[in-house]
């Protein structure tokens, strides 16, 4: 598994099972987590055939200001219900009405609901991409010198504080969209691994992956973030800033959804791979230990053969003196 899935596997498998033609409805009540402090509650509060999926996101308020509601309305329109107590957003799937629908429609619904987290988090990106499109249109009218302030500088920075100490910043300009992650490592080891990984990202374009977005990594806050509250940085702190520069070719309508999905899972992808490389190194270490143990076992001294009967070439026997 190189890339992480975007959808929640539990919601996907659960809905698929329930929507299968020969499935019998049964009650369910599960609270499950997803990455980045997202919690889902899947339940059947009214009847067994009505599955309620609720989500709570740490940065929900920020997402709403970036237009999450509109995107969720677009994706889940008829399924949205009043948010459950303690949750930010709820959709309800009625198995009885879905039962008569064709299989493709069911699959599409399963896909959409399992992408609930992705779609909610997509709001600031979509907004920034739209802003990029309009800025690009405006910029066509000006040369780089004559452009008015707003066009040259690009739009405002959208901050998503999706974890306690880490945030994503999205900023649109007329020729690019910049996405900046602030990352914090609790562990020294992880920081070292992380550095190696990020160097690979930075170097990717040199190795002939020309389509890759430009990636920059630095320890202090980049220029784009000037004036943002709550920034930390500098050598002493464990904070790093990873900047992705998305070029117009990443922002075409065809590629847009894919780009959003990829960039959203960056942090989890990053941490997953740090952990996977540790697992790989552990497996090499175990192997090496086993090899050394084998060498040690072979090196056991031979039984002391003093006092044993020995034979000469001619067949006579004698006792070796100790």
């Amino acid at each position, binding site marked *: *598994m*190189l890339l*992480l*899935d975007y959808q*929640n*596997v*539990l919601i996907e498998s659960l809905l698929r099972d329930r929507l299968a033609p020969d499935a019998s409805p049964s009650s369910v*009540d*599960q*609270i*499950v*987590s*997803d*990455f*980045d*402090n997202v*919690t889902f509650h899947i339940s059947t509060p009214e009847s067994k055939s009505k599955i309620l999926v609720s989500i709570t996101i740490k940065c929900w308020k920020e997402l709403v200001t970036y237009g999450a509601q509109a995107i969720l309305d677009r994706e889940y329109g008829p399924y949205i219900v009043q948010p459950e107590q303690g949750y930010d957003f709820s959709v309800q799937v009625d198995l009885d009405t879905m039962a008569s629908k064709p299989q493709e429609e069911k699959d599409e619904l399963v896909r959409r609901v399992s992408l609930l987290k992705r779609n909610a988090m997509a709001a600031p990106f979509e907004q920034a991409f739209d802003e990029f499109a309009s800025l690009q249109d405006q910029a066509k009218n000006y040369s780089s010198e004559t452009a008015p302030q707003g066009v040259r500088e690009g739009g405002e920075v959208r901050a998503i504080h999706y*974890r*306690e100490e880490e945030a994503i910043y999205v900023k649109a300009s007329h020729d690019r969209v910049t996405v900046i992650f602030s990352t914090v490592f*609790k*562990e020294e*080891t*992880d920081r070292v691994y992380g550095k190696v990984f990020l160097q690979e990202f930075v170097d990717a374009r040199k190795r002939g992956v020309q389509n890759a977005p430009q990636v920059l990594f630095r320890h202090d806050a980049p220029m784009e973030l000037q004036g943002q509250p709550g920034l930390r940085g500098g050598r002493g702190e464990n904070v790093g800033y990873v900047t992705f520069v998305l070029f117009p070719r990443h922002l075409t309508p065809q590629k847009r959804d894919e780009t959003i999905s990829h960039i959203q899972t960056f942090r*989890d992808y990053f*941490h*997953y791979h740090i*952990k*996977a490389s*540790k*697992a*790989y190194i*552990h*497996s*090499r270490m*175990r*192997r*090496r*230990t*086993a*090899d*050394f143990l*084998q*060498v040690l076992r072979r090196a056991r001294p031979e039984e002391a053969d003093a006092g044993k009967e020995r034979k000469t070439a001619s067949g006579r026997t004698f006792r070796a003196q100790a």
Partner: protein
Amino acid sequence: MASQTPAVVMDNGTGYSKLGFAGNDSPSFVFPTAIATKGPAGGGGGTGSGRPAVANKPNFLSGGAGGHLSGKRGTEDLDFFIGDEALTAASGPGYGVHYPIRHGQIENWDHMERFWSNSIFKYLRVEPEDHHFLLTEPPLNPPENRENTAEIMFESFNCAGLYIAVQAVLALAASWTSSKVQDRSLTGTVIDSGEGVTHVIPVAEGYVIGSSIKSIPIAGRDITYFVQSLLRDRGEPDSSLRTAERIKEEFCYVCPDVVKEFSRFDREPEDRFKKYDVRQPGGRSVTVDVGYERFLAPEIFFNPEIYSSDFLTPLPNIVDTVIQTSPIDVRRGLYKNIVLSGGSTLYKDFGRRLQRDIRHLVDARIKDSEVRAGGQARSGGLDVQVITHKRQRHGPWFGGSLLGQTPEFKSYCHTKAEYEEIGPSIVRRFALLGGPGST
């Protein structure tokens, strides 16, 4: 941050792994503890490093050539599947399936580490740094295995906190949901019968009495084989293992008396004999008659001689022996709280029959000793109670979920900081979760 997130409960068994979050009433994922990697299946896998013995002299400086991962420099270490996907992948070319756990204990740590990695990131989708973890271990698990587990959980995954609980103790905790249990004690006898083997484990005040554990080589798989052999003897049109398993799960129950049950079947054949429709691959559908195996199959627990020729002690006798070999001051508690756990204890009336048989044994012994005492001493009797409850199937997991959601759970965990201070040996001791003094 880790203080608000639910704890992750993982119960990795020989056959199936149960994964989920504390506070839920059933695991989110149940799939085979299997991992499919590139290359042929490892047959033995008995060595610690999980590689077969190398015949030629290994070049230990270059790390050795061959199929092992350490020789690879690409992303081969990520090319694997776990669970049901592993079995699917292994049926195609290129992949071989491995079972990292044998007899309840982890044998191949390389595979287990990757199995966990995928469980956490692909299925549970959690950042391990944000969550506490509750893992389970079989009784008599060597402390070295615990240390290895802790090394992986803390060093690879940086999990916020770790608690390793004994499955039998969690099964006892799961029985607290039964209405028959009044006091939440951690004293009792656990009968854990899964797919491969059945264990009878006495637990006193949350600690397993290791010297008295007994296992029985009869469990779910044997019942399936027995059903299959009965189907074959009768010449049913379909006697595949799958059919036998479905019949076992859908129709079998425990009867109070075999002879009476036979005559009842002969008296009321239309109620008792069932039909089972099998849809065979290829679209054909055949009907299999279901007869005496309905009550005969689970009967092999109580009369093993009808199935096996080398193991002949019935389960009630084993339970009685286990309790009799335990310290005398806990025996009363062990008889009073016999808890069932695992899929093969789900047959209807299994608990009732077991309770009756054990009570007969105990009563006979008491009577015997009264006779020998010549009427001088009278016994006050002994209370035998077998607890059946709704969460038996995933008993240990549910017990873990129950204890993992308690507010004090996190204070019982060892944290990453403590691990770094003391080292892996820290997990040799855990404070008893759910024991006396806690809620």
